[in-house]
Structure formats: structure tokens, C-alpha cells
């Protein structure tokens, strides 16, 4: 009696579990489904997916993770990868997958929606958004006169235990890749050594912002949209924080391009390209302008949310997004003892 009901329960469990996760690959006529390896913030991509599915009827399954985790996973999977589209927050992971030869060429009409400085010249992937590096500081702990002039100033002993970052995250590693590209390996190595001595590490830019706000550390290096996003909610993690933009083409003014690409191994090329076209088109970029992500739009001439500092005013250094090298960054950071 007990045995029979036990077996029934277990059988039901196994059926439930197998039913939950296999829905995507069987598109027998009717609605198609594409698989997106998504390293962007889940809430933002979900907004894109909802609007896209409403417009085209194509369903999207997201696998969430971080830039380099998913990028390396795609490289390890090779041409048997189940992914159709890869979306990232920063460019190094896109370059990683491109160098492994796994991207399909993006359709011309999609490429034309994005200005050339926000995509690589190879045309194997495109920019879908951008974010600016900022120096966030607690208004009560630092005055304007004490702010650093350049990102590289932070390696000086004067900044010991006075700034924070999240080195395990792809965001900060993208910033390091910009330093590497702009200043070379030697300067980067020295800066990272200084960072190891001076900086306090947190897991995630959100945690860094929260700590700065709470006064646990006077300042930190993060991306701009965390502050704007928190201000738009309750402000409990950012009311005491101000943002300082380095400008003047300093590595600290680096604007990181979020990327989107279609995998060569995808069996739903048309649908995948359609998804990229939607994201970089008017409706997709408007999500960045009016939504809660506060990242910068890059496509279809859509301007940024009025609360943000306009992109041209940031005086970002000119960096070719295709040249940012993540394996070397990982190696440098591992040697410095940050990873």
C-alpha cells in the first residue's frame, strides 16, 4: 500500500521534472522557440523577450549567467552548443566567442541600425547597449577636492582600504581589459598589484554600491546604471552616494558596449537574427530609454534616458570593442591574486 503510493509519487515527480525543462526544442509547426544565453541583467532581457514575443510570436528561453561564464561555456560546447543567441553586458566575452569562430555574420540590415563605433568591423556581432564606468563615493566621506583625477590614481598608497570593486565580475574585468588595451600590460600589472593592496572586494556591483552607501567604504568603481536604478526604486542603497565621471579620455571613463550575436551552429538563424534586429531597433532600444535598466541605447538613433549624462559628454576613450582580451585579463588578475 505504502510502496505503491510511493512509486506513484516518484513517477509523478520524474514526469514533472522532465516536462518542465524540455519544452524548447520541439517546434512542430506553430510557434518557434529560440534559446538565448543571456549574460545581461535578467530583468532587462525579460522586457526585451516579452515585447519580442508579443510582436512576433517567437518564444524565447533564457539561460542566465555571467559574461565570461557563458562565453567560455559556448566555447567549450563548440558547434554543438544549444544556444541560438548570445547577449552580454560587456564586449570581452563576445570577442572570446568570435575568436573561436562560433558566430554567424550578423545580417546587414541589423548592422545598419547601430553606429560603427559600437560594433566590431568584422560584423560578427553587434552592440546592443552601453554603460559607463563611474567612481561612486559616499558624499559624507569624500569631498570633491579629494576625488581622483584618473582611474590609475587608485593604485597609490593614499587610497589603501578606501575603495572597493567586484573583481570576480565580468563588469570589472571589462574595465581592466580597457586599461590593458589603452595602457598596455605593464601598467595594468602594476595597477592590479596596487588594487590588490588597496581595494576591498565585494561580490557584485550592487553589493559595492550598498557598502559605499552604508559608509563601510568611502568609494568604489562600478557602472553608472546601478545608482540610477536604485534611485528609481527606494534609494535605500544609494541616497548617500554621488557619482564622479573621470572624462578626458581616461581609462576610468571607459564606456563598455554590451554585445549580441547569433551562433553559427544555430538551427534557427532567421528567428535569431530577427531577435537581434528587434533589440537594436526602435522598440528594443526604447526599452533602454524608458525602462528601469538605465543603460545607454546605441541603436536606431534612440537617445538615452533624460536622467543620464548624455553619451558624448562622457568623453570616453576610443576603444575598439573587438580588441578587448578577456583571457589575458583573467591571467593578469590571477597573477595579481585577485582571482
Amino acid at each position: 500500500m505504502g510502496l505503491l503510493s510511493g512509486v506513484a509519487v516518484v513517477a509523478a515527480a520524474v514526469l514533472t521534472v522532465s516536462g518542465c525543462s524540455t519544452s524548447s526544442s520541439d517546434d512542430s509547426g506553430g510557434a518557434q522557440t529560440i534559446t538565448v544565453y543571456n549574460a545581461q541583467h535578467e530583468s532587462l532581457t525579460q522586457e526585451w523577450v516579452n515585447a519580442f514575443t508579443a510582436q512576433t510570436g517567437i518564444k524565447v528561453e533564457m539561460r542566465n549567467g555571467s559574461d565570461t561564464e557563458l562565453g567560455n561555456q559556448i566555447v567549450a560546447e563548440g558547434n554543438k552548443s544549444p544556444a541560438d543567441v548570445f547577449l552580454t553586458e560587456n564586449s570581452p566575452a563576445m570577442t572570446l566567442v568570435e575568436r573561436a569562430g562560433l558566430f554567424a555574420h550578423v545580417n546587414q540590415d541589423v548592422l545598419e541600425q547601430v553606429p560603427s563605433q559600437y560594433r566590431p568591423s568584422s560584423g560578427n556581432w553587434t552592440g546592443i547597449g552601453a554603460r559607463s564606468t563611474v567612481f561612486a563615493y559616499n558624499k559624507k566621506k569624500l569631498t570633491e577636492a579629494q576625488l581622483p583625477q584618473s582611474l590609475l590614481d587608485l593604485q597609490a598608497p593614499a587610497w589603501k582600504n578606501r575603495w572597493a570593486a567586484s573583481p570576480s565580475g565580468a563588469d570589472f574585468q571589462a574595465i581592466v581589459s580597457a586599461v590593458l588595451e589603452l595602457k598596455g600590460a605593464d601598467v595594468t600589472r602594476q595597477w592590479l598589484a596596487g588594487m590588490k593592496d588597496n581595494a576591498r572586494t565585494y561580490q557584485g556591483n550592487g553589493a559595492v554600491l550598498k557598502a559605499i552607501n552604508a559608509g563601510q567604504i568611502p568609494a568604489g568603481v562600478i557602472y553608472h546604471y546601478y545608482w540610477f536604478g536604485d534611485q528609481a526604486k527606494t534609494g535605500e542603497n544609494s541616497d548617500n552616494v554621488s557619482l564622479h565621471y573621470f572624462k578626458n579620455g581616461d581609462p576610468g571613463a571607459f564606456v563598455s558596449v554590451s554585445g549580441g550575436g547569433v551562433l553559427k551552429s544555430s538551427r534557427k538563424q532567421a528567428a535569431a537574427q530577427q531577435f537581434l534586429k528587434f533589440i537594436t531597433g526602435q522598440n528594443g532600444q526604447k526599452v533602454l530609454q524608458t525602462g528601469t535598466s538605465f543603460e545607454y541605447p546605441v541603436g536606431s538613433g534612440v537617445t538615452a534616458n533624460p536622467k543620464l549624462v548624455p553619451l558624448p559628454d562622457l568623453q570616453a576613450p576610443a576603444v575598439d570593442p573587438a580588441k578587448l582580451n578577456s583571457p589575458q585579463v583573467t591571467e593578469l588578475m590571477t597573477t595579481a591574486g585577485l582571482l
Partner: protein
Amino acid sequence: MDANPSRRVTARPHLPVVLAALAVMVVAAAVLPLGYVIAATIDTGWSTAAALLFRPRVAELLTNTVLLVVVTVPICVAVGVTAAWLVERTQVPGATVWAVLLAAPLAVPAFVNSYSWVTAVPSLGGLSGGVLIASLSYFPLVYIPAAATLRRLDPAVEESARALGATPWAVFFRIVLPQLRVALAGGALLVSLHLLAEYGAFVFIRFDTFTTAIFEQYQSTFNGTAATMLAGVLVLLCLTLLVIESVVRGSARYARIGPGVARRAVPAQLGWRYTPISLLFLALVIVASLGVPIVSVFRWLAIGGWAVWNWDVVGSTLTQTLGFGLAGAAVTCVLAFPIAWISVRHPGRFSRGLESSTYISSSLPGIVVALALVTVSIRYLHPLYQSVPVVIAAYALLFVPRALVNLRAGLAQAPVGLEEAAQSLGVAPLTAIVRVTLRLAAPATAAAGALVFLGIVTELTATLLLAPTGTRTLSMQFWSLSSEIDYAGAAPYALIMIVLSLPMTYVLFNQSKKAAGL
């Protein structure tokens, strides 16, 4: 051999071949992650491996991890033994209530505990924070076997010692504690293995250990070499702990010689001098390990209001977690069964070898097992990659020894003589096994399943790495929300995980009362 055939446990010495083959296959699979780490190390070559291993960062991680274990385990043992003593051997008021409450912290996953404490005391961090949270989350692993053993100790030896003039403290340290050695060694080992494998709890308080570093490396390089090297060091640490435990455990066993039956000890009177302080101690432990998480979770729920209860997501994550938990528990018990059968019915060197191998592999953290399975499935078993069977396989590899302990205890309560009696009455052999042995072993099997279910509900790292795209379990959902500092949004999932785990903890607690030690 016993004169009374119905009490005979071991069977005829000839090993059932099919069962032995099955057992060997399970053990071979269990040793796979260890093999992967060794193979990857050899693959990397000594110079690269040396460069990745002998660097300041690894020294930092090693210091943190070793200090964590060395400080937390004695605290857990002290708290666990004191609590067990107070509850089982004294007349402290409300002993039955305390007994259950002290086992309940097992239902609160360590990462939920950490999330609650970080809310209550935001500046908590570093080694002290890690030790606090780890002690509060894991002391029940020592308390439960200690309480079970204390309950069954023969008081006759203690009474003789008192009669010969020993003080109560001398009796405790010279008579009681040595008899607790096996239970304490096992409990301490479990605590240290959990500490080595813990990820979520230490991320909240920014405490870097090997497992958090492996995860960070994984996030930067997927299954890159540095991650595997760190995993290798972690494996070495685990094996060292296993060796230490078997040394501490020793081979001495305690049994009653002579006629008569062991009585239950008379609970000591605490009197007005010691009762308040005992109650204070117990209350403090419960408030810190249960009170803080529950209050924090409810506080976040109150702050979030009904908006954080996204019923679609709650429903689907709950269904998926239940599905994985039940399927995983069933598969694990089935896989552990051949090994348990052989070790009870045909004990000997073969069965001891089987058990030791599973024990070694289970001491590996979830992330190492997951990395191994990911590599194997990408390279050799591609159709299985990112599929449900791989996740269930990971759970089985991680939890077979937990199931084994209870299954063994259950089968030991089903003497083969009863089965033979059934056969002599005309029942076919297989039917006899099902109707007699399995029925008798059913409660213990339920406990085994409950323990595995508990492990699966709170499992985070392997699930994050292996789950098929589109899977969302409670722990994954909690983790993704709390990583974005959306603590209020994560609270419903924390609550559901705790509620799901409570019945299982109760089953486990009940079963432990019937079998001394883990």
C-alpha cells in the same frame, strides 16, 4: 552465529553477482569526479599546475579555509555536546521541546542563515562572521548523533565510577566523552566537509574560501585549469579530514559485558543554581540559529508585501524543486541499495572497500562534482549535456553516502532469518524480500529519502552549473534575487525552502532516536 535463527543478520557467504556488479558500477560512477580532478591535473602538466597552486592567493585561501575549520568544528562540538547533554541527561524544563528545536536549524539552509544575519548585522564579515554563521548552521550535525548516543549509554559504568569516588566532571570527561567518540568524530567530519563545500553563505559575508574561489574562477573561465587546480587542493583537504576522522574514531568499541540489560540513565537534577543558566544557553542557541533567520525572513516579507509573491514563479519553482527532490531521493536510494545490501548481508573486505570509496567521493563539494559532470557530458556524452538525468546523477553522487547510512541501519533491522522463514512457508525468494525485508526496512528508507530530499532542496552550486536551460528551482531563484540585492524579493523563496525542509528534519530527528550515531 546466534543460536536463534530469527536474529541472524548475515547471510551465507556467497556474494550475489548481479548485486555486486551493480554496486561496483555505482561506486565507479561515484569516484568519477575524483578521477576527473586527477586526470585534469596530470593533463595540465606540473609547471603550470605549480604556478597556479603555489601563489599567494592560494595561501590566502588555504589560511582562511583551515582557520575556518579549526575554529568552527570545536565550537560546534562544544555546543552540540552541551545541548545534547542538557536535553538527554538532565531535568531541564521543556526537554522534549528543546530536543526538536535544536535539530530544526538543519531546515534553514546556510545561505539563508547568512542572508538573515547580514540583514541583522550588516558589518558582519570575515572569519568571525564565517565562524558564527557556520556554527549556527551546522551544530545540529553534532547534536543529533550526540543526543542519540547519550540516550543509549549504559549508566552502570558511570554509577560505578561515582561509587569509586569520581566527581561528576571526572565522570563526564573520563567515562561519557570517550563513549561519544564515534558519534563526535562522525559529526565533526560532517561539519568540516560541509564547511569546505559551502558557497552561498560565505559569499554574503565576503569570506573567501576554496569553494568561493573555484566558483569565481568558473565564472571567469568556465572549467578552466585554475578552477580545477583549486578543486584538487580542496579534494586533498577533504581526504585529509577523512584520514583524521578515522584516526580519531579508532577501532575501540564499547559494549556491555555480563548479564543484564542496560538501563536508561536517570536524568540529573539541575536545581535552582544551574537551571536558569542552562535555559539561557539553550534559548540563546535557538534564538541565534532559528530565531534570527525566521525573524529576518518575515521582516523582509513584510517590507516586500504581496508584491514579492509572484505566484507563477513561486508555483513553478516549487514544482520543479519538489520534482527534483523526489526524483533525486528515489534514484539515490535505489542506487545506494546494492551497496547497503552487500554491506549488511555479506560484510567483509569487499563491502568495506565499496563503502570507503563512496565515502571518499561524497566528501567532494558539489561544485567539483558538477564541474566533472559538465566536462564529461560535453566531451563524451553530449546528448546528456544540460539534461535532467545529469542533474539527478550529480545529486546521487553527492548524497549516496547519506542514504547509505540509513539504509544500512534499516536492513540491519531485517534479519535474514525472517526472510528464510517466509521462504520456508512457500513464498518465492524475491517476494519474500519485498514483503518481509523491504517492509521492515521501509522506515529507515524513508529517513534516507528524507535526508537526500533535504540535501537537494538546499543544494545550490551543482544545480546552478548543471540545470537545463529554463530550470528554476527555489534555491536558484533565491540566489539570483539576492545576488541583485533584492532581499525582499528573495524572502518568499527562503520561507518556502524552510517550510519544505521542516518535515524532513522531523523525520530525520525521529529516525536518529532509533539508531545511535550517524
